[in-house]
């Protein structure tokens, strides 16, 4: 006789062991370690919610406080490795195996631990890829999540930073897993139900509010003239040419400069309503002037941003908000939107090679990916046309019946030829390859693959890789915008001039861009304080950005 309910029986046993530490579903923060030791079993797959921004930090401290004799060999499956505790548990022997997406602040330490064999790495995923595996072969046994508030039935309000929570809970709760939520407060009635209570087994009232990282705030005061020049080129040479309405921006200063030029430079070019109307984007403060000037129709968000809550509440026509008025974000849906419903991704990177592969990995850091590889890839599952997508597809060439050709997503790398400390952004060989060799990884961690990149924009010009027909042309197109780096100076000057004559390389002067316009006076806001003014006082920047 087959037992078809082994997982359900195991779940019931976990709940029975945990009950003594809870009052109904409510667990005091002092009992977190007891609770986790009761629920967890050696070898469990665990999602300790570490998002791009929101962190289940109280539960992370609790997990790190467990006795490794009782809780060990866990397999962590979570998008973000952000807090020190996320790695402490590997040193302690509580966790052994890791599948993740992003590790920005812990990138250096994770590389050391991988090298030292303290972490058994499954893979570094893109967000959608990891979420997808939650439902196929990386389903969590236990999810430790974070919310703003809960009622005694476990109904959960995640606040504006919903992020990964619905996806994590969906995979865990409906496949015999246990869900534990930490919240900032227990209330009689939550402002809105983001996660229904019957999916949440235990609620811990955290000792401190969960940590949120302000990842998406770029101070306009730090935008340089070179970045303004590049933003003008992107607007005139790409946004206007392809009529890009639906898009996603990366988080660098280059894209912040584009956002700040929409109400000034792009307005002067008569592009209002023609470009940048529909967005998959975190609520970037630098987009406030464009929103206030009527450029933006709507924005769906992966997560929120610190200080933007009041502003978002006051602009429900633009943002997705709940019945309570606050932002509803959702990383899985927004990533899907960015992948299938946007015509352009534009972002920065640290290294680009001669074919156009790009990577943010350096030899000592494994920062992971986050969203860029999903946004920055051409989705072969797309079937709906748009003028932008069709034009790009046409430029990419191809033969046969035009009705059988695909369009192409525009994937643009916006990169200054030299980064910090004169480190060149263009290289013959990516550091990611050396790292893969050192760590014995089967795949080098490439952020955006060469065959997905359509344009590279530097201060020297735009290279349109769609129009290149041979690998040699492609290499010279890349060298031709690589400035005074070794790669740039290694160009074949005659070939680069031929590519320029064919419009594959375009210089600022070819685009009719006035160098004198590359001035900070062109920015719609020149400081964080200007952004506060634009928002009518609704944007409340965190302390570290208040320099007045």
């Amino acid at each position: 006789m087959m037992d078809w309910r082994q997982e359900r029986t195991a779940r019931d046993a976990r709940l029975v062991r945990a009950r003594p530490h809870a009052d109904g579903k409510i667990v005091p923060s002092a009992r977190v370690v007891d609770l986790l030791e009761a629920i967890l079993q050696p070898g469990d797959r665990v999602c300790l919610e570490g998002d791009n921004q929101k962190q289940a930090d109280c539960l992370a401290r609790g997990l790190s406080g467990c006795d490794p004799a009782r809780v060990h060999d866990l397999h962590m499956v979570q998008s973000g490795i952000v807090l020190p505790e996320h790695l402490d548990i590997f040193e302690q022997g509580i966790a052994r195996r890791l599948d993740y997406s992003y590790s920005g602040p812990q990138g250096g330490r994770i590389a050391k631990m991988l090298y030292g064999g303290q972490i058994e790495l499954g893979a570094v995923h893109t967000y959608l890829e990891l979420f997808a595996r939650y439902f196929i072969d990386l389903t969590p046994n236990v999810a430790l999540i974070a919310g703003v508030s809960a009622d005694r039935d476990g109904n959960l309000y995640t606040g504006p930073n919903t992020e990964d929570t619905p996806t994590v809970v969906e995979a865990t709760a409906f496949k015999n897993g246990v869900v534990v939520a930490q919240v900032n407060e227990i209330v009689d009635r939550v402002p809105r139900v983001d996660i229904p209570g019957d999916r949440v087994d235990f609620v811990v009232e955290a000792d401190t509010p969960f940590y949120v990282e302000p990842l998406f705030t770029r101070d306009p005061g730090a935008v340089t003239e070179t970045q303004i020049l590049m933003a003008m080129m992107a607007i005139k040479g790409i946004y206007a040419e392809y009529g890009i309405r639906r898009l996603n921006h990366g988080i660098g200063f280059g894209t912040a400069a584009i956002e700040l030029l929409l109400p000034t430079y792009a307005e002067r070019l008569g592009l209002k309503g023609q470009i940048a109307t529909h967005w998959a984007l975190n609520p970037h403060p630098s987009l406030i002037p464009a929103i206030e000037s009527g450029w933006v129709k709507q924005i769906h968000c992966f997560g929120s941003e610190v200080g933007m809550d009041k502003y978002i509440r006051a602009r429900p026509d633009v943002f997705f908000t709940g019945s309570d008025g606050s932002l509803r974000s959702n990383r899985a849906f927004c990533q899907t939107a960015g992948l299938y419903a946007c015509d352009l991704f534009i972002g920065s990177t640290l290294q680009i090679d001669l074919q156009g592969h790009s990577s943010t990995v350096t030899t000592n850091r494994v920062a992971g990916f986050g969203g860029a590889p999903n946004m920055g890839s051409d989705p072969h599952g797309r079937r709906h046309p748009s003028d932008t997508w069709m034009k790009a597809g046409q430029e990419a060439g191809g033969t046969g019946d035009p009705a059988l050709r695909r369009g192409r997503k525009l994937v643009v790398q916006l990169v200054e030829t030299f980064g910090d400390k004169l480190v060149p952004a263009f290289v013959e060989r990516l550091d990611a390859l050396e790292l893969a060799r050192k760590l014995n990884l089967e795949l080098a961690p490439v952020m955006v693959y060469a065959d997905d990149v359509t344009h590279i924009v530097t201060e020297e010009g735009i290279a349109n890789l769609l129009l290149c027909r041979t690998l040699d042309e492609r290499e010279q197109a890349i060298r031709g915008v690589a400035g005074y780096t070794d790669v740039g100076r290694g160009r074949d000057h005659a070939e680069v001039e031929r590519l320029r004559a064919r419009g594959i390389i375009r210089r600022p002067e070819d685009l009719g861009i006035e160098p004198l316009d590359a001035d900070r006076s062109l920015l719609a806001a020149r400081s964080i304080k200007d952004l506060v003014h634009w928002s009518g006082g609704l944007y409340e920047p965190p302390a570290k950005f208040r320099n007045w």
Partner: protein
Amino acid sequence: MEKLSFRHTTRTALPGTRASAITGVVASGNLEVLLERNLAPDACHVEIDTAIKGYAEVWAAVVADFVARRQPGGLTITINDGGARPDTVSLRLAQGARLMELP
């Protein structure tokens, strides 16, 4: 400190009649460019005073590209550099040439 000097011949004179212009500031990562129209219409001299040694080859390339693209005949260009990146130098030179062309 390093002093560099480049002499170029141009095909044409830079348009405009403005006698001199100045752009930029001497600050870390920035530079000041003084442009004076005081040479024969097919000559351009560039004198550089830079805070950072060892980049003579890059300076030569940046200046040669600027001369080829803008044809700044007739100008003496004096640069006070505070360690600007090549992209900043190129932009500042282009801006200086445009200032000299304006009425």
